């Protein structure tokens, strides 16, 4: 390992500009002649739009245009789409209702766009938006997924508000296993709805150049090429080659910036209409109602056990709330990203999962850090923990008994786990968390009048998303490979162009580490270019912990080609046979001799092209590659949470956190540790604090940071983070991915710990002090009654 190569804790190259205010986020960009877009949003969760009167608004100072859904329809701007087709059990396709970028006939959630003002300044735009008069006929709203199927249909095309009724697995085998089980653990679970709250709100700037007929969109997106494809091919805004999408520095996404949203579509459309650049910057209040939310499942789950705690089956029924419209990848989250992970780390012979996805009058729900896998982990790890308690077994021992121990392992739910050592991460975590000393610590807590609990989460996730053919067969509308181009300059420095997109992950450092190691060049001599469809030919973007496993694998492939070409140049330079050239430590050597040329000599010669003729070799040194993974990757690990609870107040303090993860090869341990910290913080946020709450009328009442509680430093313990390693066999670097693990593992560990402490399983997330306090009281009452 070199000081800047793979495995080195290199300081992030990008941080200097981020922490000195030199980052270029979308909102930092201003275009000459720029105008501002202000959206008028529905205050009603469900209403017919009878009339939109824009006259008074249009006459306000500084107003350039006031546009409505009717204008959008007249210009034949297409609807937004969901790009993953799911079929119901009966074979019928999912019911994708029309999702116009501005509502024309009815609004389906609070925050739905009703009109847009294009004005000289933001203040003028806001003042004018006040003057738009909308006559609504308010309709009854449904917000609770459990009631959606018996409520009046929101969309004509989706009777009973049902988008699909999907299933996976062998129902008969599962029912038989449950019938013959020694014990069945049953749980009702609500996976609470979350608001992503990336630090940087969404922004779009659109500019139309009438001279070239080109449209440019600067956008806070995790996948600029996919945005361009959808906006071009489905929305019909412009041909793909006439639309450029630039995603500059992006301040956090967590999935919420994968999707193609109405606002960027409207900005592009308006920019062409008014002939000037149009900029929209979401404020925090808008973000709460206009960004796609995460999670929101209602689940009944059963786990069957045989002799000695052997898990024989899992049966799951979930209602997934997808909100008012189907967001870009919403359909895949509660299906193929969820049910396929219900085997957890365990050898389970039979699994069956049914999922009903429903419309409600709430913000759309789509992927959020982990996307389906946190929900699956929560189901499996709660069942295992509760099962152990009911069976009187040590939860660690029950897990160990059921771990998959041989690989590859085909689960009953599609996934083929390729490598792992689940016992190793559990053992390391038990040691690091000092589980042996827990009883003593519990007694000490008791003496202080406190309750102490311990909770495990042995999670698994499917990352490195994803083999194109496999996801295609499951309904995905795109391939999920990644591209890379390695451009070597005459002086030997390198630009890596990648289709991956960094919005906090540190690609400018980790991708450069790969090149630095491979070519033995200083890391300063490598720059990473991403986020611009005019620079990078195509790419699928960053989500699903895919940048290392898929994006860097594409770079490896391109580097292979660069090395092969450079060897040809070196062979001409040294008048040797190409097959005799060895590349090592940044030098090209003729095997068995002391003849060598340095990297920089070869790169210069590749461009001056004096040592070979055009008929012999093409000049230049630039190679591209596409890498399509052959399998998902399967990061897995064990997190142990220890809590202390004050029974008088219900306040939970997390007093210990141990994370032992197997991410395969770790490129930069410092960045990986940061990813674990961030993920765990978000998972703890979900478990203890965060919840998007709609009232019965469909008003988002936890719609600001006054009511929606983000985790703060005081909510987090000092984390013990460690790793074990089994290399991923399916990609050249052995990487599995680490971006989502913490958020996937954490909620189950927290709730397992709290329920251990209070001696009751009747507790829903977020486990706020009042919720825990009430659960303690309820359990005591029931104990008394019994």
């Amino acid at each position, binding site marked *: 390992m070199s000081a800047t190569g793979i495995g080195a804790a290199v300081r992030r190259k990008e941080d200097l500009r981020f922490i000195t205010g030199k980052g270029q986020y979308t909102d930092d960009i201003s275009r000459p002649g720029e105008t501002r877009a202000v959206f008028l949003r*529905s205050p009603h969760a469900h209403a017919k739009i009878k009339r939109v009167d824009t006259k008074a608004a249009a006459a306000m100072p500084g107003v350039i245009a006031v546009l409505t859904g009717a204008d959008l329809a007249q210009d034949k701007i297409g609807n937004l789409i969901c790009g993953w087709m799911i079929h119901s059990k009966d074979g019928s396709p999912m019911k994708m209702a029309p999702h116009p970028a501005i509502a024309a006939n009815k609004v389906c959630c609070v925050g739905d766009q009703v009109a847009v003002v294009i004005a000289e300044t933001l203040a003028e735009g806001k003042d004018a*938006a006040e003057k738009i008069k909308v006559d609504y006929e308010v309709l009854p709203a449904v917000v609770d997924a459990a009631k959606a199927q018996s409520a009046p249909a929101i969309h004509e095309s989706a009777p009973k508000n049902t988008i699909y009724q999907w299933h996976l697995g062998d129902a008969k085998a599962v029912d038989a296993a449950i019938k013959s089980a020694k014990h069945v653990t049953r749980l009702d679970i609500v996976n609470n709805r979350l608001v992503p709250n990336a630090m940087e709100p969404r922004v779009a700037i659109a500019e139309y150049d009438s001279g070239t007929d080109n449209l440019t969109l600067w956008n806070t997106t995790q996948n600029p090429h996919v945005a361009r494809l959808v906006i071009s091919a489905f929305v019909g805004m412009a041909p793909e080659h006439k639309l450029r999408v630039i995603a500059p520095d992006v301040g956090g996404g967590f999935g919420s910036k994968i999707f193609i949203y109405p606002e960027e579509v409207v900005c592009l459309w308006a920019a062409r209409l008014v002939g000037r650049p149009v900029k929209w910057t979401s404020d925090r209040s808008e973000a709460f109602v206009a960004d796609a939310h995460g999670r929101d499942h209602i689940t009944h789950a059963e786990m069957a056990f045989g002799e000695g705690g052997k898990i024989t089956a899992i049966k799951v029924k979930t209602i997934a709330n997808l909100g008012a419209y189907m967001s870009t990848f919403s359909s895949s989250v509660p299906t193929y990203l969820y049910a396929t992970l219900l085997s957890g780390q365990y050898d389970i012979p039979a699994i069956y999962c049914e999922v009903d996805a429903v419309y409600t009058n709430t913000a759309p729900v789509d992927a959020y850090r982990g996307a389906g896998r946190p929900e699956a982990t929560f189901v499996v790890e709660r069942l295992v923990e509760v099962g152990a308690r009911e069976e009187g077994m040590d939860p660690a021992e029950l897990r160990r008994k059921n771990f998959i121990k041989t690989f590859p392992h085909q689960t009953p739910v599609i996934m083929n786990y390729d490598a792992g050592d689940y016992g190793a991460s559990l053992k390391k975590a038990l040691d690091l968390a000092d589980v042996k000393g827990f009883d003593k610590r519990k007694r000490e807590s008791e003496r202080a009048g406190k309750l102490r609990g311990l909770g495990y989460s042995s999670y698994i996730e499917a990352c490195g998303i994803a083999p194109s053919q496999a996801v295609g067969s499951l309904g995905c509308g795109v391939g999920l490979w990644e591209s890379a181009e390695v451009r070597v300059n005459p002086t030997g420095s390198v630009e890596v162009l990648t289709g991956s997109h960094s919005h906090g992950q540190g690609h400018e450092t980790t991708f450069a580490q790969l090149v630095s190691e491979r070519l033995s060049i200083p890391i300063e001599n490598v720059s990473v270019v991403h986020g611009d469809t005019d620079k990078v030919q195509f790419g699928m973007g960053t989500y699903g912990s895919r940048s290392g496993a898929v994006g860097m694998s594409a770079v490896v492939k391109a580097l292979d080609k660069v090395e092969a070409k450079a060897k040809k140049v070196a062979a001409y330079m040294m008048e040797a046979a190409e097959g005799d050239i060895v590349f090592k430590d940044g030098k090209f050597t003729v095997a068995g001799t002391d003849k060598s040329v340095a990297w920089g000599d070869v790169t210069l010669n590749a461009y001056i092209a004096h040592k070979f003729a055009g008929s012999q070799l093409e000049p230049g040194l630039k190679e591209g590659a596409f890498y399509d993974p052959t399998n998902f990757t399967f990061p897995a690990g064990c997190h142990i949470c220890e809590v202390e609870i004050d029974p008088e107040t219900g306040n939970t303090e997390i007093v210990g956190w141990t994370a032992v993860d197997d991410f395969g090869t770790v490129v930069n341990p410092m960045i990986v540790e940061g990813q674990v910290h961030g993920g765990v913080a978000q998972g703890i946020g979900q478990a203890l604090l965060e919840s998007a709450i709609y009232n019965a*009328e469909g008003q988002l009442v936890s*719609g*600001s940071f*006054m009511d929606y509680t983000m985790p703060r430093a005081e909510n987090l313990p000092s984390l013990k983070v460690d790793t074990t390693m089994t290399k991923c066999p399916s990609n050249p670097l052995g990487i599995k991915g680490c971006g989502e693990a913490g958020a996937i593992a954490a909620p189950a560990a927290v709730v397992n710990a709290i329920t251990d402490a209070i001696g009751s399983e009747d507790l829903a997330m977020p486990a706020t002090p009042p919720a825990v306090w009430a659960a303690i009281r309820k359990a005591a009452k029931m104990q008394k009654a019994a």
Partner: protein
Amino acid sequence: MAMTMAGEQLLAAPQEKVWAALNDTDVLKACIPGCETLDRLSATEFTAVATNKIGPVKARFKGKVHLTDLDPPNGYKISGEGDGGIAGFAKGGAVVVLTPKDGGTLLTYNVEAQIGGKLAQLGQRLINGVAKKLADDFFVKFAAAVK
């Protein structure tokens, strides 16, 4: 999840006088917090403009006010719906009952109100406190007006 609030106020005035004041646009306009205009359209219909602040959101509500269930001089139901522009909306009503008590008049009220849009997003948790304060402000002025 409508907000509900109930209360009563003992007024040092005869019931007929209180009833008259409850139907007097000038009195109502002076007592309703933030009321800018209150114009009578008919015996039971008014248009109103009022500016109020709920938490961080200040909104100028424009809307109609209706009187129903009129039972002079024992009470009525006053209801309204205000459009606060991009701040959202507020709607609701109050059942007002007058009964003679201790030489004066006991006014009891039952309020039900709903808010929507940005008002609900930012102000839902504050709405009960705000409503209580608005009611208190109203009755301090109203008590003075009927004295």
